[in-house]
């Protein structure tokens, strides 16, 4: 196995172009587990740890995206996201806080989750919920491609990267409303998601974002649930009034989230449990975000 250690981003792109089968490694929290279990023997590892820009984030305005955006380096560890970006990216910060153990959170990153594209990756539901203009910066010697998050996950542990592309950063709009993330595990820490759910309210454009983890071949949104609840909020003027959503609509939202999932029975849980738990998490997180939203309305008034 070759071990490639580029010193700069350009060297990394050149190395990836020359060795398209090289597996990028940064924190190694996924890659090394696969290697140690002898499940995967890549021809080469492409070590990105010398490229410091990958562990930086910046905020600003970017073409094609509305409002303020966080450009999150692919290797910014979850511990820092939770610590530094809980106001800007609250859903991702909550999701990051559920990843593995403190040690894993110090090394694991969103770039790794995206590269692995496992349906159980904790970042995915938060990214999907954060809005349709979350963009993955995929780069190769041929240039930069901005992949909308909705088009990024294409199959079980498969993403839409080309073989010569690397993930440089993710551009995520700064939250314009409350966000939440919930995850089921069969113990109280250090678990891979049995299923997970992310939600984000977007009062600016009157939409609601969702993301489902570990309950389908890929991370996915619950589109009908999003449209249903956005419709309810708009029709009933709730964005303006901040009144209660009401149990019937919350119940329906949960059902539609469940309907969007296509879980399987496996060693971590049954499909029936996953469906059930998604509905509960959907109802609870919608309630939490809505309560937070109405409180912010009241305190702004």
């Amino acid at each position, binding site marked *: 196995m070759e071990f490639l250690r580029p010193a700069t981003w350009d060297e990394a792109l050149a190395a990836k172009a020359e060795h398209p089968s090289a597996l990028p490694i940064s924190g190694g929290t996924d890659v090394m587990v696969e290697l140690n279990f002898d499940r995967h023997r890549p021809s080469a590892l492409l070590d990105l740890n010398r490229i410091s820009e990958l562990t930086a984030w910046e905020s600003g305005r970017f073409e094609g995206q509305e409002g303020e955006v966080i450009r999150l380096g692919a290797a910014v560890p979850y511990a820092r996201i939770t610590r530094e970006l809980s106001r800007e990216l609250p859903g991702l910060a909550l999701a990051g806080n559920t990843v593995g153990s403190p040690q894993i959170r110090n090394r694991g990153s969103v770039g790794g989750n995206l590269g692995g594209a496992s349906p159980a990756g904790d970042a995915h539901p938060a990214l999907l919920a954060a809005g349709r203009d979350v963009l993955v910066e995929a780069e190769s010697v041929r240039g930069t491609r901005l992949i909308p998050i909705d088009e990024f996950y294409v199959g079980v542990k498969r993403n839409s990267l080309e073989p010569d592309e690397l993930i440089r950063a993710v551009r995520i709009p700064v939250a314009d409303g409350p966000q939440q993330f*919930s995850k089921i595990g*069969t113990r109280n820490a250090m678990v891979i998601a049995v299923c997970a759910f992310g939600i984000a309210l977007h009062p600016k454009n009157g939409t609601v974002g969702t993301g489902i983890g570990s309950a389908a071949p890929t991370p996915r949104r619950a589109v009908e649930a999003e449209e249903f609840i956005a419709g309810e909020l708009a029709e009933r003027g709730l964005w303006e009034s901040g009144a209660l959503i009401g149990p019937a609509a919350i119940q329906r939202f949960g059902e539609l989230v469940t309907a969007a999932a296509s879980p399987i029975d496996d060693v971590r849980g049954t499909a029936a*449990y996953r469906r059930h738990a998604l509905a509960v998490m959907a109802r609870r997180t919608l309630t939490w975000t809505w309560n937070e939203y109405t409180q912010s309305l009241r305190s702004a008034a």
Partner: protein
Amino acid sequence: MSQIRTEKNLQNITTAHPDGIGGSPLRPDGILKVKGEFAYSSDMWHEDMLWGMALRSPHAHAKILSVDITEAVKHPGVQAVMTYDDIPGSKFYGLEIKDQPALATGKIRYHGEAIAIVAADHPETARRALAKIKVEYELLPTITTEEQCLDPETHGYVHEPSEYKGHASGNIVHSQKVISGLGVTDEVRALADVVIKGDYVVGMQDQAFLGPESGMAVPAEDGGIDLYIATQWLHVDREQIAPVLGLPENKVRLTLAGVGGAFGGREDLSMQIHACLLAQRTGKPVKIVYSREESFFGHVHRHPAKLTYETGATRDGKLVYCDARIVLDGGAYASASPAVVGNAASLGMGPYEIPNVNMLAVALYSNNPSCGAMRGFGAVQACFAYEAQMDKLAAALDIDPVELRQLNAVEQGSIMPTGQEIDSPAPVAELLRRVKALPLPPALDTTHLDVRDIPGALSNTSHGEGIVRGVGYAVGIKNVGFSEGFDDYSTARVRLEVIGGEPVAMVHTAMAEVGQGGVTVHGQIARTELGVERVTIHPANTEVGSAGSTSASRQTYMTGGAVKLAAEAVRNELLALGRKRYGWDYNDLSLVGGKVVSASAGALVPIADLLGDSAIDLTREHHHRPTVPFDKETGQGFGHVQYTFCAHRAVVDVDVELGLVKVVELAAAQDVGKALNPLSVVGQIQGGSTQGLGLAVMEEIVVKDGKVRNPSFTDYLIPTILDTPPQPVDVLELADEHAPYGLRGVGEAPTLSSTPAVVAAIRQATGLALNRVPVRPEHLTGTGE
């Protein structure tokens, strides 16, 4: 610590020392372990060493049609490839029943069975060579369910009748009945006002020790082998290894290497024979370290069990009878199954007086993973069932569940269903009273919520919604030491000499230190008996006699007892030397602060002066009082050395909508006879309780059609610190006059009752029956099998 203590068997010749017995000196290896500096068996290195590795079957039941090693042998860097045919000595081994081939031949009986072994210059070379071994299998239908096992005519034999070595026949390894009183007949049933029936299931728990199986075999010039190994019993390993190598036992010398946990999982051999065979073949040191995945296939697990109980009681809550059947899945090979059956049968009625008993316990052969020793050893499974029965009975009679237990609890003088009298304190009712009297933890504060305190914790599944609290109680009974006529004696050598002007005691045993703290306690005993400050613990090896197994809660009792005997013998010889030299006629001599002291005449002489250049070096064996096998048909017999009791109270919060559980507090009360090291005692009780908590809510090896589905710590979950609640412990010390210092084995009893206590608490919170452990979210939400 409780003030209740009887010390009639304590000889007042021993001296108080802050680091003697009753004190809590720190473990000599504690800081090293915490800092990651302790050398475990997997850390060993030898010049010129080779790496050994095994090829394992991906199938649970198959004929081996052929094994072709040609390409593997040719692989550069490979020094040896061995199969069954290359074994020089006997081909089979086993703790008691020698039914397990050192390498598979003819047939595969479980998923992960080793077929061939390779020694190579690098682990990766060995892995590649293994991949080149071609095995042709003919798959056979698996025999995995109780129904299949019990009908071999239809479903086949795990061991063909011509090869069967167990104690019964068919696919049964061993069975044991216990019948007492009138047994359970229609007449007896008619005496009961209330009858409770229950079927229970216990999943397959793993010991989940953190240090994987590992060791190094070094060929010696005399044609023998020196094996450095993490194990629980050096001498019984040797007994099994030497015949396979075709060597006399004295040519196989074992030294204990750093052990990273055991819990019963190292009672059976794992890589020992393989490393020795490869070292013998290549003439080079061979190291084997299992990966985590291989470890799950490399050791036995706790027997999964199906338990059927019928309990009858009078209207006022007195137990009348119990009829029980316990079916333990022993898997492919016998391992410790017979002894586990003996425990399940003889302890399966719990710490209760039941006048009429009919019990049958059996262990099956199947194509599931082999099961054997694990902390609690047959008593764990039964405790889950009989304690669930007691709760159901209490509910049916509308009696407080603790009161019902107290009403029926055994005490000193009670007769067990085996006919054995409990002839030392059995404070079951008192332990229950104490654990119930502990203050309850405060209610969940939903106004200042910290998600870490509630089910789901950082996974952020609830902000207080759906959470219901429950409280549950349980108590259990466990034996200490090997039972049924087994003389599991321990040997200790104590040497007293002067080093640097100071008397120094050296304690040499073959006791496997697996974390239980024997290395600390041996020093405490030597200080107490010999009045010296400095004690050296010799590395454990086979140069000294057997110390028996570090299991069955027995090491402090047995090897601690041997150290006491040897130290007493050394002291007697030292005092005899003094009497001879100085003509003392005092009858009140003891050793205190490095001096010989007379209670009446004061300090007489420093030990260093009395001893001079000579050394006193004595070895003693410690045998517990004899026991007898249980009668095959009635289970009657004085079968156990000592009984031990622990009670638990569990407080849980359950998210009843999501089926997630957080144990809020797990309180314990246990009688330990005498706490030789109170800090270690509390540690043992908390550790054992936590392992029982794991069985209650998460720990299970999932096996489907004989295939292990979760051989990793990604999917075999054990409690993290966020799953492990505060654990108040009330330690009672009622001496057992038959035991050294009056002590009672500590390690296992807390593993029994914590599981049913946690489940009882979850039942109270949810109102569900919950007849299976571990309890999974599916069971609490009606969304699973």
